[in-house]
């Protein structure tokens, strides 16, 4: 039987029967909230042979973000921990979907541990301390255990969400592998639908995983320097009002720039040159201030060298392939059992009607039968050098972060 492996603990010499990791994903696009939840749960449950799941992830589109959905799933799950998010569009094996919900059910072997937690009522003033609390709570009970990975979901409406990552890194370590997403809707934690909140999972033990993050945007034009900034707002670039950079490039005055923000922001982010890193860290424009300042989805440090970035469908798709390949290479020749994807909404806009070619490319790398769960996000959290264990997780824009689990 290949369903179980015998494991002998070298210290205690005791023999354990280790159940293999099983992960099943179920999907439904039924407009009826209860039916949708039941259909998706049943599909996921049958994929793990009706075993009692240890953990559940729920991703749904904004249309199906309803207490009835959560209640129906909770009724089936019992006290199994549940984390989730809402997004304008979710990703499953069949492609991206604007109306539906997907559930991933995990049944882990005994040598994989995890802890879940959430922090609520996060505001501008307490983002960093909330991150620290998130880190502390995730570490609780994990002392003495080899820690592997953390997955976090943030409500994208939280101002300066990046500070949550910084706060958390203070506790779990700067280089600790992390993958996460800031979403457009609320996050789920067990029985609650939460706004202004963040929730996370910390894995320990023998989890075999691979991470890949790429964006595919290329620098364009001459480098510039952020001469005055604070947090996510750049006041001056090259000693001029920050907005003049975009005004010059797009030949638009401030008001028409504001009007066209929807068409500029996703396609032309700024790239921050991180010393020692090959890839630029992207920052997409979120608003233009009256004084000509620019606010971004993520911090833009004063003194950083920046470039205007541009991409194309081909570059975008190639970066997806690279991210998938990076995640696969880290699995040590084991076949992936599950793929978690956080894909920027900007990429979806760039690819337009062809957005599903990204999912096809990922399936080409891992195999079409590997269950996929993903969401389109406002920001992605992942290490910049994905395969490097020492890679520091950053708050990304316009990127695709792929987590593959094997075992």
């Amino acid at each position, binding site marked *: 039987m290949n369903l179980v492996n015998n494991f002998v603990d070298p210290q205690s010499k005791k023999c354990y029967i280790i159940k293999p990791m099983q992960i099943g994903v179920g999907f439904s696009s039924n407009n009826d909230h209860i039916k949708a939840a039941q259909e998706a749960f049943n599909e996921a449950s049958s994929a793990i042979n009706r075993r009692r799941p240890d953990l559940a992830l729920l991703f749904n589109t904004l249309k199906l973000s309803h207490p009835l959905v959560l209640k129906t799933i909770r009724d089936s799950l019992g006290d199994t921990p549940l984390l989730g998010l809402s997004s304008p569009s979710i990703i499953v094996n069949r492609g991206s979907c604007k109306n539906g919900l997907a559930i991933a059910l995990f049944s882990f072997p005994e040598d994989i541990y995890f802890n879940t937690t959430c922090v609520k009522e996060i505001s501008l003033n307490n983002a960093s301390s909330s991150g620290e609390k998130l880190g502390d709570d995730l570490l609780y009970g994990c002392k003495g255990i080899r820690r592997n990975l953390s997955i976090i979901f943030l409500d994208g409406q939280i101002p300066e969400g990046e500070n949550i990552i910084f706060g958390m890194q203070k506790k779990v370590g700067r280089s600790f592998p992390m993958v996460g997403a800031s979403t457009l809707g609320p996050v789920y934690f067990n029985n609650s639908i939460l706004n202004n909140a963040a929730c996370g999972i910390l894995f320990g033990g023998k989890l075999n995983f691979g991470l890949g993050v790429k964006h595919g945007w290329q620098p*364009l034009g*001459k480098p510039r320097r952020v001469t005055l900034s604070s947090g996510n707002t750049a006041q001056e670039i090259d000693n001029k009002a920050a907005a003049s950079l975009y005004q*010059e490039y797009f*030949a638009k005055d401030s008001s028409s720039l504001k009007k066209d923000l929807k*068409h500029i922001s996703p396609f*032309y982010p700024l790239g921050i040159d991180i010393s020692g890193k090959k890839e630029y860290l992207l920052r997409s424009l979120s608003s233009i201030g009256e004084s000509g300042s620019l606010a971004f989805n993520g911090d833009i440090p004063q003194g950083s060298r920046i470039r205007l970035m541009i991409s194309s469908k081909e570059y975008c798709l190639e970066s997806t392939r690279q991210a998938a390949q990076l995640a696969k290479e880290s699995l040590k020749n084991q076949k992936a059992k599950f793929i978690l994807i956080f894909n920027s909404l900007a990429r979806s*806009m760039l690819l*337009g*009607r062809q957005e599903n070619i990204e999912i096809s490319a990922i399936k080409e790398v891992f195999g079409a039968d590997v269950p996929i769960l993903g969401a389109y996000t406002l920001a992605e959290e992942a290490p910049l050098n994905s395969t490097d264990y020492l890679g520091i997780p950053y708050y990304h824009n316009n990127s695709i972060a792929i987590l593959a689990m094997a075992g």
Partner: protein
Amino acid sequence: MFEANIITILIATLIIIYLTAMLLTKMQKAKQLEQEAEELKKSLDNMDEQAKIIVRTDMELNRIQEELDKKISGLYALQKLSHSISMTLVEDQIFQRLSPEHIDELGFEKSLIFFWNKKGGEFYTKAALGYAEEEKELISAHLNGNKEKFLSLIEADETLSSITMPENFIDKNTLRSIFKASYFILSPILPKQSECGFIFIGTEKTDTLITEGDEELIKILATQLGQALENARLFEKTWNSQRELEEKVGERTQELTAALEEVKKMNKRKTDFVSSVSHELRTPLTSIKGYAAILLTGKLGEIPTEAKQRLEKINRHSDELGHIVNELLDISRIESGKVTMSLEPWDLREVINKIEDLLSGQLKEKKIDLEILVQPKDFKVLIDQTQIGRVFINLIGNAMKFTPANGKISVSGKKKDGMIQVDVSDTGCGIPQEAKDSIFEEFFRVENSINQEVKGTGLGLALVKRIIEAHQGKIWVDSVMGKGTTFSFTLPQG
């Protein structure tokens, strides 16, 4: 000492010269570097200018792509929606097919369809997506408060949007607040008909860009809804007419069935009557014939010649009457199903041979040639040989009756539609056209000189018809006056 000083001076001079040269070289290099830096800066600036062109072109391309994607998505949605609404011919179901997904794919969130009720003189809601009940009522009230304007808009058959709304129509912002939509499109449905309406489709998203393409798309949707509606109404009309027709046909069929039943009953009564009368006639007829025969023998005393002549007449007429009675009985028995046909496979030629033997004397006497064109084993028929024998006797007998001397009678056969068709033709006087339909009726006799001379019961062909029909066959006649007659009948294959 002097020499030493000179050497020092020379060395110092040389050093100065060297240093000056070095300085000049450095200065030249610095100038060169400065020039290069300047060129590099210029290149960077040029590159930046090129980048600006690239970015602006790229942005334009993205915008076109976005517009194109939107149009393609809209067209796909329209195609799906058109397919969906064309699949039903029930008026109410057409509007139920309009789903939030379709509206979303068209790039909007909400939709309303209003129709004009001519009798009530007001607009009513046919479909609403993305609106609460109270919102629907509010919109309906506003619409009916400005019904003339909306009616004139429908009559003008103009598709309008929040971008192209004319000044003289209702204030754009008022419509925005009533319909709770920042951007919208309004398009008439069936503008030329009395029961007309319009579709409203809108979004609350402030960044929506409504283009001419969107207006065209919604106009197409409105036209297709109108067409589907017309089809549904036409179908309902046709359906109702068909139902009316079916009901009428049903009624007529019932009436005809009842009449047929009545005819059948009457026919049965007639058959029963003929049968019982025939039976009743046969017994006294036998007695009459018996007594006449005894008297004729003279055993009861000598009979005067005149009385003998009368008795012979009684005897002959009794035979004729007996023949009529027997044929009537046969017809009524066949009609009532009392005679069962004992069907067996027979060689047609063999059946005809027997008749030929039987009639050969009469044929010779009348100098009529009987030509049998059916060869042995040509056709096998499933028949009651005795009854079909009677058919041949009757038909050939008739032909003999109406064919003058030196005439010809021929019997031929052929396969047709799984049956065997037999034709009995003569070169006789023929049957008038008007008599053809009645020739198989009981007691019908064609009015001609021969019939006036030759006696007949008028039951022979009626009996033939009954026998053929009892074999699941058909009989008919073709005739040309003065040239001859052909009786054709069909028999099942053996």
